[in-house]
């Protein structure tokens, strides 16, 4: 018989799903713009450009909300890697995903009210939310308002390094998203973690 604890407040779940939807729109439209082909339009170019702009601005606003809500609620602490065996905890968690999971062994560090994330989640989420997301949003805003970008860099259009950074970080977040969605299936049941992100209740 599994037990349940209420772990995720409404604001966090709402932010998570809106964030996910916006990032999904940005991945599809961004990919469509970058790999534009006349004979293979994933999303028509002009539409993709508009949607990407709108979703990008919305994501920037949502990120502002995320940072403020994290500070106010104290949730920011969840993302901070805790000392005292952090590396060891990461290695144990990695061994779980690479080996123990196939033998049906339990999660080594199941979520608790005090620590929602295991050490691997902490370090990866921290990098994604506090390192890569600001780069993605800043370079995206420079793309939106090219006057903010440098005019020239090494004799080339100043937008080039901005575009390269934006696309590279976009790729990193795309790869994270694939892994993140997949690891969502590693709960008690395949759907447990998805249900938790909807209801806020964690089964263990």
């Amino acid at each position: 018989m599994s037990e349940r604890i209420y772990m995720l407040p409404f604001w966090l779940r709402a932010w998570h799903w809106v964030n996910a939807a916006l990032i999904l729109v940005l991945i599809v439209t961004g990919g469509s713009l970058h790999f534009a082909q006349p004979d293979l339009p994933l999303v028509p170019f002009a539409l993709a450009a508009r949607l990407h702009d709108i979703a990008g601005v919305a994501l920037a606003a949502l990120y502002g909300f995320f940072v403020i809500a994290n500070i106010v609620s104290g949730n920011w602490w969840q993302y901070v890697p805790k000392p005292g065996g952090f590396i060891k905890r990461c290695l144990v968690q990695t061994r779980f995903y690479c080996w123990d999971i196939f033998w049906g062994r339990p999660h080594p560090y199941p979520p608790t009210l005090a620590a929602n994330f295991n050490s691997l989640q902490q370090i990866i989420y921290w990098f994604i939310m506090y390192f890569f997301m600001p780069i993605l949003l800043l370079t995206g805003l420079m793309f939106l308002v090219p006057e903010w970008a440098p005019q020239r860099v090494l004799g080339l259009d100043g937008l080039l390094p901005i575009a390269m950074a934006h696309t590279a970080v976009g790729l990193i977040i795309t790869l994270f998203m694939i892994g993140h969605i997949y690891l969502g299936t590693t709960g008690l049941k395949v759907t447990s973690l998805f249900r938790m992100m909807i209801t806020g209740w964690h089964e263990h």
Partner: protein
Amino acid sequence: MRHLVVVFLILLLGTPSALAQTAGAAPTDPALIEKIRKSNAECLGCHTEAALKAPPREGMDLLKLKTLLVDPAAFERSNHAGMECKTCHGQTANEYPHREGLTAQVSPCGECHAQKSMRIEAQYDASIHAKHLKGKFTCQSCHDPHLYKVAAKLGAPSEIVRQDNAMCFDCHESDLKFATFGDALTPPKRRPDLDDIHEWLPNAKLHWGAVRCVECHTPVSPTKTLALSHEIVGKDKAEKNCVACHTRDTALKTRLYRHMVTEEREKLGFANSIILGDSYVIGATRNAYFDQFAVWSVLLTVAGVMGHGALRVFTAGIRRLLRKS
């Protein structure tokens, strides 16, 4: 230069037409240069901003003169630099007072540019300008012969864009200038707002600073090596497929960057790297190495999680079997 001599010979012989197309080269013979300089100085003695401020003669019609000014420095940078004013304006053009109707009696461009004119005429006849303004619209309506320089001589795409778009904006951003043509139509046509009719185009102003209006407002040239068509088309026929330019095989290679395409190299893996000197064009200036890395990393990640998932399902099945047995 040879052509200019031919022009002079023909003019001296009294047959000022049917000239061969000029090569655009300025004269190099010092005596001829001095003769042209002196001749042009007579004209520029009045037809400049400086002369307007300090008229060299009394009783001049300054209001009319204000509409007939030439910037000598800009003229010296133009395609017609080194040519004598009288070549186009007639041998008696520097007689003062000017004869009646002198302004209207400019030699047709085709007299020198015969070959080009023949090709352009058919294109122009199909254009929206010819459709609405046949007879009122001339080469000079767009190309100011005292300023204009062909793209290949301007070189830098930003300069080409600035010059060529200025020709369009001259009328299409000025109610007054547009009305000089629009009022002649039945019914009279008011100038449409450029922002309104380009509402569909993302970052319209960014485009206007980076590419020419004619990139979209002319049909694709049937021959890639030929210059842009003079068949200017209105909004109904204009290119609205963004991917015509925003892709690896970008149309910019046969349009704005046509004269530079021989320099094209895929430097550091960037497609259309020649464009990067001016603009980063989404879809066109992609990096092949990065693209391959991106595609493979996504494919491998998807394959990785699918493999992991399949192994989980498989081992869960084995565990179930073991429990049963």
